[in-house]
């Protein structure tokens, strides 16, 4: 990026300062590099450089059979691995036109929402830490730990779960698990209030987040933002409501939207989503039906030639899979992911312009990216 001379009058000509923020920087949430052009501390422009965590997951998938790919999807959004699993499995099920048993769909809903809470916990912790509130981070991780325990009990893993199979679940939920989930809901309800007590009405927090990175609804839609980053601008777009998957059409919940589209509203949206997720988990856990956990899956998964796109609402936004099958081989012909973090990240340049260096970290936190998903 070229620097320009800024004319401040006849006496002084000053140069813009170019700063490489990342890939080694405490608050770029992984390996993101943002090249900032600064006038003093004001950001004139920025360039987002990605690719430091590229592992070629899309290409790899074209050489794996359909079941093996589930494991690769874990590695994309590694703080919400189960959501990626569900998204992928549902896409293949759509391609195969496979019926998934109701019990499996309910468990998927519970897992997805638990995962949303875990992901938002990580987000609220790191976002608050970027703005300097250290303690929220450990509080949020304490609750995330409870969710990881629930996942460990369900599938044995704590980060990359490989928790889904095409057509249903790999195994049924262990006995007593549902009760533990409900107990967790009670604990979490109180803890969300604790986070909010530390932040929501904190004067410093308000000053640091209100009016920072304002983006209007139409502009956010135009940039392709999704998830809470879009809903914070007042656009009520939520795949769970608009194109229900799993058991979302059988549970009651509200789509939370903001009004101003600033960092504070995106924060409020996610905080309220904690509560909505708990609401969904409670309904799904109480209404979990009896029955099989896997549908009629052919022994050899080999979808007929064709293509399909299916999206789900991951904690970060619309996570879509586009899969092409040539009908001949046992692996996809083309595997493409629409990762919400990637789409949200391209809004960063628009958001940070004119703000200060201190706000850049707040804004990176506010769009909630996971670099594993951006680079794949």
């Amino acid at each position, binding site marked *: 990026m070229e620097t320009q001379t800024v004319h401040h009058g006849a006496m002084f000509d000053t140069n813009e300062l170019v700063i490489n923020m990342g890939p080694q*920087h*405490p*608050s770029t949430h992984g390996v993101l590099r943002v090249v900032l052009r600064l006038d003093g501390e004001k950001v004139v422009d920025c360039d987002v450089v990605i690719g430091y965590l590229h592992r070629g997951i899309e290409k790899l998938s074209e050489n794996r059979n359909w079941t093996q790919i589930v494991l690769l999807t874990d590695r994309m959004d590694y703080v919400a691995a189960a959501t990626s699993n569900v998204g992928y499995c549902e896409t293949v099920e759509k391609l195969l036109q496979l019926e998934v048993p109701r019990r499996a769909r309910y468990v998927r809903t519970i897992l997805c929402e638990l995962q949303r809470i875990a992901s938002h916990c990580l987000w609220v912790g790191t976002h608050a830490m970027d703005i*300097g509130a*250290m303690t929220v981070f*450990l509080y949020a991780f304490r609750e995330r730990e409870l969710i990881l325990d629930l996942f460990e009990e369900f599938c044995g893993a704590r980060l990359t779960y490989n928790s889904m199979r095409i057509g249903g679940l790999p195994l049924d939920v262990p006995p007593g698990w549902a009760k533990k989930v409900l107990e967790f809901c009670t604990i979490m309800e109180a803890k969300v209030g604790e986070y909010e007590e530390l932040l929501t009405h904190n004067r410093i*927090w308000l000053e*640091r987040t209100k009016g920072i990175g304002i983006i209007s609804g139409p502009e956010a839609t135009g940039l392709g933002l999704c998830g809470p980053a879009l809903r914070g601008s007042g656009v009520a777009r939520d795949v769970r409501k608009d194109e229900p998957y799993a058991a979302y059409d059988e549970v009651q919940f509200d789509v939370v939207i903001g009004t101003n589209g600033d960092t504070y509203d995106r924060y409020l949206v996610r905080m309220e989503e904690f509560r909505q997720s708990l609401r969904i988990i409670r309904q799904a856990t109480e209404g979990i039906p009896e029955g099989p956990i896997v549908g009629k899956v052919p022994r050899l998964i080999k979808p007929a030639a064709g293509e399909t796109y299916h999206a789900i609402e991951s904690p970060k936004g619309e996570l879509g899979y586009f899969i092409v099958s040539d009908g001949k081989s046992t692996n996809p012909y083309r595997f493409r992911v629409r990762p919400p973090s990637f789409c949200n990240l391209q809004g960063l340049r628009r958001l940070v312009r004119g703000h200060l*260096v201190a706000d850049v970290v707040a804004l990176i936190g506010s769009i909630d990216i996971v670099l594993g998903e951006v680079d794949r």
Partner: protein
Amino acid sequence: MPTPLFIAQIGLTLFVFVMLLSSAAGMVYVERKVAALLQQRIGPYLVGPKGLLQPLADIIKLMFKEELRPSAADAFLFALAPIISATCAFAAFAVVPFGGDTTLLGLIPGGLRLQVADVNVAILVVFAIASMSVYGIVLAGWSSNSKYSLLGGLRSSAQMISYELSYGLALAGVLLVGNSLSLTDIVNRQAGTWLGFIPHWFVVVQPIGFLIYMTAGIAETNRAPFDFPEAEQELVAGYHTEYSSMSFAMFFLAEYVNMVTVSAVATDLFLGGWHGPFLSESIGWIWFLLKVAAILFFYVWMRWTLPRYRYDQLMRFGWKILLPLAVVNLLVTAAGVLYFGS
């Protein structure tokens, strides 16, 4: 022939120096333990009983680290900056009294004041040295020839001009009430009580001054929520990004010693110094330590609870809220002193 008083004075000077050093080490430990307590962790526990030797381990680790200097750095200023910071931090404490007269078990007939130097303009000395310590940070930021360091140094100077004025005005209020520039005189004026139970502390007559002093004190010591020059999440480590080994340790030390100094001055000015109920003046330093510890705990508590301000917001806060408030406080105090007498 050195008199016992002279030897005691030398001893006291050494004692204060060593105590400041170990109070900084102690503060590191306390900070980590209190942070752990607030965050529901355990904190250091491996090195020594309950992790008490952790600061020592940290120091040893820092001593054995390689001393690095960026090739583009200004070598002289780069080496000078941490020295300025550390020197200023220690120097300011020289005029701070921390206890009443003591005869040291009858060894010194005339009595020894627990203070390195009784300067009759002590407040001005503290204020002057505190302002100088900013040079350490600004020079460190500039001489490193690194972008993050530069931003940290610039923030520090911007921050200084926005809190120093209100800091000074808050002190002026106490000067009017105490009618002296000597910290010892000011402390001695705070002895006794009103109505038998309200301690004669200046915080009672100068509550706004105390709040302004404490707020500016946080900015002065670069502690969260005003730790902009080293804002980790924004500037990596700010002005000391390029420092390593002992030169980094000196900045670290300076920060903690500054905290102790600011707390000690606050105790002398507003909280009655070594005066307190139950204890006689000869062991009044126990009260002094307790009060300083309370303020230090408050600092640590703030740091681990609050988010960080933005430096332009601190400037706005300093100029638009703190300064007018300090001016009003000073005027009201002056009027009060004129009307009631001091």
